């Protein structure tokens, strides 16, 4: 009887495991099937490197380079803002902050992570967008820069909490060894703790950036949504994610536009996949 129970439980768990993999494969196959059809009308090269995206003109122009660049620009900006602040904050929490302040900061970060992205986007729209507009004297504040700042706020909680874990898991003995040689606290952090935690910190950065690449709602609200080649961080842009979200509703099922949006999905999938695998590699290198 006991044996039978074990057997059933084991098989149930197995089925759960297989099911999750099965669904992932199914989704991926569907994405491929729908997306790859677009290459009947446009070559992969022209699709990836074409400079104009006019999906409803006749004939449609399906070049997604402006969208890729839009995503890259916004992501890069977000990374430049969030990495130093996020890692600095993690170092402060893990190494410097006294007990009380540490607790307050940690709950603050958790709170930040809990704000839904639409809400953040909305707040960004009414505060950040006018601010950017006035500071740089622009015709509109809906720019890549506004998107980057907004997304930096979303990447920060991920970066801080994972980097902080990495810092905590540096053996205490490294720190004592350095201090016993007469290193100052700062020298110990800079030359021993940070290098020892570096793979975990890199993983934290990659996961933070992964979150930024996949983000849709907030970017759609504040980057201006112009699918043109971006020429500056102060110009409106359109990201890959925002394109899908904005246009999928209007695209006629089975049209070239429809297939093209799926192909955009594939590109997004591949980028996210690469980022996540890189993060994983760093995390495993640590162990």
């Amino acid at each position, binding site marked *: 009887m006991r044996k039978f129970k074990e057997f059933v439980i084991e098989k149930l768990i197995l089925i759960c495991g297989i099911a999750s993999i099965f669904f992932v494969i199914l989704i991926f196959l569907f994405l491929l099937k729908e997306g790859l059809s677009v290459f009947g009308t446009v070559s992969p090269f022209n699709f990836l490197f074409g400079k104009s995206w006019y999906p409803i003109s006749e004939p449609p122009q399906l070049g997604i380079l402006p969208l890729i660049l839009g995503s890259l620009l916004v992501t890069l900006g977000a990374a430049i803002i969030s990495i130093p602040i996020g890692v600095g904050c993690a170092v402060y929490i893990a190494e410097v902050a006294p007990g009380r302040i540490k607790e307050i900061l940690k709950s603050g970060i958790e709170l930040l992570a809990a704000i839904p992205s639409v809400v953040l986007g909305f707040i960004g729209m009414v505060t950040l967008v006018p601010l950017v507009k006035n500071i740089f004297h622009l015709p509109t504040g809906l720019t890549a820069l506004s998107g980057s700042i907004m997304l930096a706020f979303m990447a920060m909680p991920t970066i801080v909490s994972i980097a902080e874990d990495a810092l905590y898991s540096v053996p205490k003995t*490294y720190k*004592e060894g350095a201090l*016993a040689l*007469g290193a100052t606290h700062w020298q110990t952090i800079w030359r*021993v703790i940070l290098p020892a935690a570096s793979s975990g910190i890199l993983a934290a950065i990659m996961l933070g950036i992964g979150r930024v690449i996949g983000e849709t709602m907030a970017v759609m609200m504040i980057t201006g949504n112009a699918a043109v080649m971006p020429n500056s961080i102060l110009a409106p842009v359109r990201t890959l994610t925002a394109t899908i979200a904005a246009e999928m509703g209007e695209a006629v099922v089975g049209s070239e536009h429809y297939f093209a949006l799926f192909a955009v999905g594939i590109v997004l999938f591949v980028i996210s996949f690469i980022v996540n695998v890189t993060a994983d590699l760093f995390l495993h290198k640590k162990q």
Partner: protein
Amino acid sequence: MVTFDIKNLNIWFESTQALKEVTMEVLPHEILSVIGPSNSGKTTFLRMLNRMNDLNSNLKMSGEVKFEKEDIMKIDVELLRRKIGMVFALPLPLPLSIFDNVAYGVRMHGLAGKTRMAEKVEEALKQGYLWDEVKDRLTESAFKLSGGQQQRLCISRTLAVEPEVILFDEPCSGLDPISTAKVEDAMVKLKEKYTIVLVTNNVKQAARVGDRTAFFLSGELIELDKTDKIFTAPKDKRTDGYIRGKFG
């Protein structure tokens, strides 16, 4: 001039008292062994001398510790720790190459430029009696060394910053007898240049290398005397009992 002059030292961790009214001296160029059962306060005592106890926020102390006539609490802590090196129970190489482990502290304190660095590292490794074993593999990771070699690397690293005193906390507890003998040899030779305080759980080790031996029990210094005195005619019967293996 005495190296350490310790008067009425008390240390508490919250409610537990780890050291009670310890009064003693450490003399220049001696090996002072500190023995005693587990929890007798040996590590706490040792970590007081280079202020590693400062890292512990729930610790309170009273009394006075003077290093070469100066109150250690008034000496700049980084300078104090450079002058008073420490070797831990488990070898703690940093995740760097053999060369960089030794060069680490030297660079940090700016004790040698690029050109003198190689000499400096060689000298330190020779003093740690490790040079011959590693001279052809200086760029390899320190973790590839055996435990005993890692421990001598940590000794070399400590020596490279030119300390005056070296504190050892059970440096051989993780080592086999041959590695232990090598580390002990190194210590005996080092005392010509340095003052050494050696905390050890191994009574025989204290007898082999110590000039004087201090016996701690439950945070009290029970007896401190010449090593042969302690081992042949201890004054206190608790010392006698410990040496014969009655506690822990």
